[in-house]
């Protein structure tokens, strides 16, 4: 407990307005891949930290899928002790540089922040990013816990947010950790999916390097289910954590979808991000659409539509079957997209991709939708309006309507129980039907967010540690369930 009296009174702190994130100019950034958000200065971060009221209930911690002790790191920051803030944050969150940029704070910590009741919530995400970036730049000034080696080994399959988080937690508990990655580079969706302008790849690389320095081994080009089977790995390691994500694109299943110029968001973003096709030095080709339609309303759709804009599209349009209120994307991404000249067509669904005789896309035939009663997800159900079809001219279409489970790994492990949609079934602590094999992230919960995957990785690491120590099942709270942004949350 910090007994020091804060320098400002509550009233004074209430009077401070929420900080505005410095951004690259929208016109300039719409033609480059540099990061949009420039980060807070020390002064801005200190001022924003003063806005935290340190309420006794600490709703924000409960709102965080990895239970970051938010008031604690903010308090250190407010007192000007950034190193202490960094140590505090890193103790709770393995990848704060990442989450400070890509978390949907408005549906998590900032949603429940008390200050949001009467005004704007504390900019927790911006503060997290500030402290995390400081920590990355001042790594040698931070605490480095050294754990006693346990001589137990864990194989982690997948190097995305769940895998990296689990690997970090496990290596710090003294276990010998090897990550298997299917691609040639580690980072999963952080590397192939999220674009440079939202999450610079140097930052992800620094996080991966930090894990390597801590002793984590990374084996690239290892496709589990092909290069090795899961049962083979199980024999090599004392425990396994499966965090392969939901690596299969969902297509619209409409005529014309195989025309040239139709990409899955997975393919489009992987070409641009992992393979660096945005950069002239890369050998990987990418189509530069002039009029691009991106189907979907989530973060992946926003990433795709803004990427297309940066690659020279004069018209880059989101086609979404529900309304603005239902967009699942982070609110900041939607605002950024709008500022960059992205167009939004709401309550519209594609029915056919139109092409020319050479097989190239020339348009997207769409139908207008009306919104009915809320469905199981709490969002209004879209229904096609008969006779409302129209053609949206375009030369490229990116399909960003979700992903599903990739059967490559599960097919190599007949003992692994999957549900009807191909996702892995686990107990309350993340263990699958194979003893010693744990799973988390999108391959368990279906396509979700970076932070939920990290939460799974963190909890699974605790469970794996207990398993290796012979104290399984651990005494831990069950997983935090994903939440959809409700109408009330955005009001």
């Amino acid at each position, binding site marked *: 407990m910090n007994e020091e009296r804060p320098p400002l009174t509550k009233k004074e702190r209430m009077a401070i307005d929420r900080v505005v994130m410095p951004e690259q100019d929208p016109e300039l950034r719409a033609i480059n891949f540099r990061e949009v958000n420039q980060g807070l200065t020390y002064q801005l971060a200190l001022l924003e930290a003063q806005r935290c009221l340190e309420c006794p209930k600490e709703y924000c911690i409960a709102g965080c899928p990895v239970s970051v002790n938010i008031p604690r790191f903010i308090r250190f920051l407010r007192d000007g002790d950034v190193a202490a803030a960094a140590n505090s944050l890193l103790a709770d969150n393995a990848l704060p540089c990442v989450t400070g940029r890509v978390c949907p704070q408005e549906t998590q910590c900032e949603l429940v922040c008390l200050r949001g009741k009467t005004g704007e919530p504390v900019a927790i995400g911006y503060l997290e990013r500030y402290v995390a970036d400081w920590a990355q730049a001042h790594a040698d000034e931070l605490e480095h816990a050294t754990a006693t080696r346990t001589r137990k080994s864990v194989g982690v399959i997948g190097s995305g947010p769940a895998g990296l988080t689990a690997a970090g937690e496990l290596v710090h508990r003294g276990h010998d950790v090897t990550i298997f990655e299917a691609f040639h580079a580690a980072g999963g969706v952080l590397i192939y999916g999220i674009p440079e302008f939202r999450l610079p790849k140097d930052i992800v690389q620094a996080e991966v390097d930090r894990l390597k320095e801590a002793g984590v081994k990374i084996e690239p080009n290892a496709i589990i289910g092909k*290069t090795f089977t899961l049962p083979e790995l199980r024999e090599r390691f004392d425990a396994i954590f499966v965090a392969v994500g939901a690596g299969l694109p969902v*297509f619209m299943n409409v005529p014309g979808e*195989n025309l*040239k110029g139709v990409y*899955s968001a997975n393919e489009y973003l992987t070409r641009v991000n992992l*393979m660096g096709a945005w950069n002239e030095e890369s*050998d990987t080709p990418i189509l530069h659409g002039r009029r691009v339609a991106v189907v979907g309303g989530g973060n992946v759709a926003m990433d795709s539509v803004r990427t297309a804009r940066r690659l020279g599209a004069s018209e880059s349009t989101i086609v979404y079957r529900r309304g603005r209120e239902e967009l699942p994307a982070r609110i900041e991404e939607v605002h950024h997209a709008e500022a960059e000249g992205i167009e939004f067509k709401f309550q519209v669904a594609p029915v056919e991709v139109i092409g020319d005789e050479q*097989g190239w896309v020339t348009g997207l035939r769409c139908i207008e939708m009306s919104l009915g009663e809320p469905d199981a997800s709490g969002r209004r159900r879209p229904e096609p309006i008969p006779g409302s079809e129209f053609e949206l001219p375009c030369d490229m279409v990116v399909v960003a309507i979700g992903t599903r489970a*990739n059967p490559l790994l599960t097919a190599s492990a007949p003992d692994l129980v999957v549900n009807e949609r191909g996702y892995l079934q686990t107990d309350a602590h993340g263990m699958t039907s194979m003893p010693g094999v744990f799973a988390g992230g999108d391959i368990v919960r279906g396509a979700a967010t970076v932070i939920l995957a990290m939460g799974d990785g963190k909890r699974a690491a605790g469970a794996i540690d207990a398993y290796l120590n012979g104290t399984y099942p651990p005494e831990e709270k069950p997983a935090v369930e994903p939440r959809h942004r409700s109408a009330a949350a955005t009001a």
Partner: protein
Amino acid sequence: MHTIRAKQHLSPNVWRLVVDAPRIAEIRRPGQFVIVRLGAGAERIPLTIADADPEAGTISLVIQSVGKSTYDLVELEPGQAISDIAGPLGSPTELLEAGHAVCVGGGVGTAVILPIAQELSRRGVRVTSIVGGRSREWVIMEEELGRAGEVLPCTDDGSYGRPGFVTEALKDAIEAGGVDAVYAVGPVPMMRAVSELTRPYGVPTTVSLNAIMLDGTGMCGGCRVTVGGETRYACVDGPEFDGHQVDFRALADRLSTYRVFEQEALAKREACRAESGETTPIAAEVRS
């Protein structure tokens, strides 16, 4: 890193590289492929595993230099290395257990045929290989296929073996009777012609589709092909499919997606090399 152990020139624009890949050499099966990335900035490209030596820990990659990435690869010399090789990918070939199989290889596609013929022969299946090329120098792997059975080379210009296309030799083989299956790999027009030829005879025909790929694990969907009216992924559902069900026109069409980029990249590469005084070993025309 995967060191090149040996290199062999097979035809004017086809080379064989024998590279270290011990795990893949141990477990690969006929029909499977790898994704290769030469190094930083390079493309990921799918290449068939033409052969493997589990004891030496090496696999054979047979590469046709048609674009920048393949030119870069075939210029590697023994001792140099490839950064990334991932695999083995794709579903193994469904092979006959007995009977008579005809394996048809066109150009670099012959490299896909070789492990199929080898395994069929090992199982005791009678193998007839028909290998085609424009002229004598384009016919590859005849000797190795010869160890698996009879080989009938064909050349378009009649400079070697039987004059004419592989389909003519195949037609004679089928009409002679007793052919239980055909495996055909080569340029799209060849696979289409073979499939059309065998269809009226009802001979099961397997083709291997060289679709554009990125990850090779089903994640990007770039390799989608139309088979039996349905979209399938060449990387995980294939690369081999029933030739009688494949929409070859759609395949050829999608394969042309990056043709302009490929030509530009190659031209840029040639220009860079001309400037530095180097010459490309062969400026082969691109076969489509």
